[in-house]
């Protein structure tokens, strides 16, 4: 089910499925793609709430502009508006960055944090790049870095409707707006990750070359008590390439940590 909700004087479109413990799912830079299996699989045991980030789907940009800070406050407001309690927060890729920005501000309504191949922090030196420059790659090269099996990521744009294409273009613009400079990270975020006082799982596609498993280890070291698990035969989007393994690992982590 999809609906729109008014939060903090802006409008958010949400996909909602299932019953049980609430799980807020923050999507990747590519978009939400609710028709793909992972939301359905998650909804078998969670009440899944998955907003389209402002600029994606039918969620307008905040004040025609906006930043990752704005998204963090917006989703904390959303959690309050929905009266979430003991919720699981899941963020993938760009959504992982947003989730971390939320959690350094307040973990009050959440019980677990799951970051899946997140962007968002700077680990290496100023002349090294932690995050592949997705904007300097032709699509075929990008797919090779982002997918264990690049064929799974291919989209035949010529077969899509005008509305679908418009949504893709708007999403690309929004992703760029949020992450152009500094490139897909907040230079100050790593400094404050110690504030995250929830059981935290980093799930990583073993073949991710947008942000590699080595980058994941940097995240693990910065969040107290965090653990990292690799998902084989997956790249930057393990939830997309290996949805069953993704949901299995996530559920096991939530079960084991109350």
């Amino acid at each position, binding site marked *: 089910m999809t609906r729109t909700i008014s939060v903090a004087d802006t409008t958010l479109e949400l996909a909602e499925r299932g019953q049980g413990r609430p799980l807020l799912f923050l999507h990747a830079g590519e978009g939400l793609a609710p028709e793909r299996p992972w939301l359905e699989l998650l909804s078998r045991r969670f009440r899944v709430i998955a907003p389209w980030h402002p600029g994606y789907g039918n969620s307008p940009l905040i004040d*025609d*502009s906006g930043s990752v800070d704005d998204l963090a406050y917006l989703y904390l407001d959303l959690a309050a508006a929905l009266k979430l309690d003991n919720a699981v927060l899941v963020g993938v890729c760009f959504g992982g960055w947003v989730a971390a920005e939320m959690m350094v501000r307040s973990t009050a309504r959440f019980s677990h944090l799951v970051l899946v191949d997140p962007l968002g922090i700077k680990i290496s030196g100023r002349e090294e790049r932690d995050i592949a420059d997705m*904007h*300097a*790659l*032709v*699509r075929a090269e990008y797919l090779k870095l982002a997918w264990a099996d690049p064929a799974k990521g291919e989209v035949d*744009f*010529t077969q*899509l409707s*005008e509305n679908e*294409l*418009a949504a*893709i*273009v*708007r999403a*690309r*613009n*929004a*992703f*760029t*707006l949020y992450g*152009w*400079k500094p490139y897909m990270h907040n230079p100050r975020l790593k400094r404050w990750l110690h504030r995250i006082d929830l059981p935290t799982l980093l799930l990583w596609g073993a073949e991710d070359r947008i942000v590699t498993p080595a980058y994941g280890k940097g995240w693990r070291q910065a969040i107290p008590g965090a653990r990292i698990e690799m998902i084989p035969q997956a790249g930057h989007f393990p939830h997309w390439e290996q949805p069953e393994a993704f949901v299995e690992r996530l559920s096991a982590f939530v079960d084991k940590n109350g």
Partner: protein
Amino acid sequence: MRVWYFSEMAYHPAWEQGLKHGSLRVVLPNSNFDPKVGHGLLNRYLDEFALCDEVGLDIMVNEHHSTSTCLTISVPMALAIIARETKRSRLLSLGNPIANRPDPVRVAEEMAWLDVLSGGRLEMGLVKGAPYEIAPANSNPANLMRRYWEAHDLILKAMSTTDGPFNWEGEFFHYRNVNIWPRPYQQPTPPVWMTGLSVETGRMAAERGHVVGTLLSLSAAGPMFEAYRKRAQELGWRAGADRFAYAAVVGVGVTREEGLRRANLAADYVRTSPIVAEPFTNPPGYNSLSANIAMLRAGGKRGGFVRDRHGNPVEQTTASIEQLIESGTCFAGTPDDVYEQIKVLSDSVGGFGHLLMFGQGGFLDHRDTVANITLFAKEVMPRLRELNQEPQKAVAAE
């Protein structure tokens, strides 16, 4: 009509390597630039600009970055030299890519300084910049035009304010004490120009009364100028030809053959300019939603902006000189041919008052460039002066 000679100060010795590399811009390593050869070329190109003053042409300078197509990386730097070497030519900066500049007040200072230095000969283009300029500047393309308009407003306010300092706390730019010294020679500001290819740019320029320029493609010029005239009329004024500029490659010769040969060499500018590594050609947010949808529909293929008389894209990288004359990209032949081509094109778009003359483009050597400039000034310019001549809307200070 005024004619503004212009050269990108090309570094054509690297073009062959660029073609092999698949990109003349952004990613072509500068090991392909030989500083000694560059030293000779820069000085040669500046001599060619200086010649324009002697023969009665105006001068335009632009800038690009990280590219073998254009060694001018700073309009104000080049114009500072040209201002000292010339006495009469008006000097057009076309322009400062202001959405890629971190410090608009600095832009205002530099333009005011140039205007004072040149005794009020400056005309000031505030431009969006080409898509492949985003990567060298690393400016965010998703809010490019918001930043453009804020920089535009701040620059004009900084140049025209005489009772400063004033405060500026906008979305992108923050200053508490704006009070530029020197202030410009022309009051309240030098004439302002914009560039573009779209109807929307035509409308936006009309709302501010700026000169609007477009380049190399008559199919873009017509609708853009028409949109400008219509918007001006809605706002209660009539836009004369002096509000419109058109850029084209020009090759003139004593014989038709010689003119075509010169234009054909200079036209390599048009042929090489779109050869850019693909990811840098369409940064997200730079082009409109509808243009992006059309590109995705076409399987991600992006056409150049040169179109023929029927609006069909012309393959820029391989176009013949005949095709480029047909598309309004080049004016070429004898002085009579060139005058006639300019007049026909101008008439077909409702009349433009400024011709931006690409009179040099890579492999056209110094002798040919000098001959091209001199012959044009002697045989074509006097006739063009009469064409579309109307009182200037923006009058320069004496």
